[in-house]
């Protein structure tokens, strides 16, 4: 248990080291991995797994997955990036994901937060309110 806590703490520090101006970059991650390779920690594999896990979480927090059934204008995408960067206080990059089940509109996911402005979501909420 004590060992797990130490590994978790180390993984979190490695994630912090992987950021450049608050944003995880490929270059910094490469440097961190190179450093880990040189150090050769006793629980190398466990540290790497934990680092990867926290890295995914950090990337998810810095990415706004915009689900939409069709194309979206660049202007709308930019507005989403600016707005959510301001809200979370860190640079957020918007990524478009096709989802035809939404019928029309958009659904944005940032980390564990979900913002829904799709037609399917509205109909679903309407149905829930009726029942």
């Amino acid at each position, binding site marked *: 248990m004590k060992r797990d806590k130490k590994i978790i703490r180390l993984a979190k520090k490695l994630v912090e080291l992987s950021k450049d101006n608050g944003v995880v970059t490929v270059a910094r991650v490469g440097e961190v991995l190179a450093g880990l390779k040189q150090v050769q920690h006793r629980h190398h594999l466990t540290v790497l797994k934990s680092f990867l896990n926290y890295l995914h979480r950090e990337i998810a927090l810095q990415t706004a997955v*915009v689900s*939409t*059934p*069709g*194309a*979206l*204008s660049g*202007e*709308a*995408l930019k*507005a*989403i990036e*600016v*707005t*959510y960067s*301001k*809200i979370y206080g860190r640079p957020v990059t918007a990524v478009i994901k096709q989802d*035809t089940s939404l*019928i*029309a*509109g*958009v659904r*944005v996911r940032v980390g564990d937060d979900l*913002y829904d*402005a*799709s*037609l*399917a979501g509205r*109909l*679903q909420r*309407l*149905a*829930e309110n*009726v*029942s």
Partner: protein
Amino acid sequence: MKATFITLLLALSLPLGLVAAADAHATSLDSVAEVAELGAHPTAHEIAEHAEAVLKHSEAVAKAEGNKLTKIANKFGVTWPTLIAQMLNFCLVAFVLYKFAVKPIAATLDERQQKIADGLQYAEEMKTQLAEAERERAEKIKQAAIDAQKILTESREQSKEMIEQKTQEAAAQAEAIIRKASEATELERQKMLSDVRQEVARLVVATSSKVLSRDLSDSEKQTFSDSAAKELAGTAS
């Protein structure tokens, strides 16, 4: 018994006493007759002389009487030694009879009389006790009847109260059952309505989704998506 014996002795000696009394009475009658022969207003001297004469006469009469008694006794063969011996014999026989016959018989009779008296007293006491027992029995029967009546009345009241209580409980239970059934029916109805609403909403949503997916053009969808993205950006900021 003792008293009877004494009475017998007295009866035997009574004739001698009567004879002596008759003689004394005759003498006194003679003296009275002589006093009556005096004048209407005698003087003291005459009275004294007369009293002295009477005294002398009395002495003479007494002497003559003694002679008369002696003559009678001699005539009947009564002499002092025989009389005394007979009296002694009589007393001895009387004593023996009293000591060995009369006294035990008297004791036996007294004892028997005492027993009879005790028996009578015992019978009287028993009679009293019987009467008392009869009275107590009657009182107890009366009291028992009163108690029985009281118990019967209490039992009737209790049974009446119990019946009333049970009736009320049954009514309350029936009311509770009816209320629960009504509530269950209402819940069932509400659930059915909710299910119907959910089903209708699901059908409406599914139908609307299909209709919108089929009828909306790509440009319309993009326009809606852009406006939705701007709306999200505006709402979030």
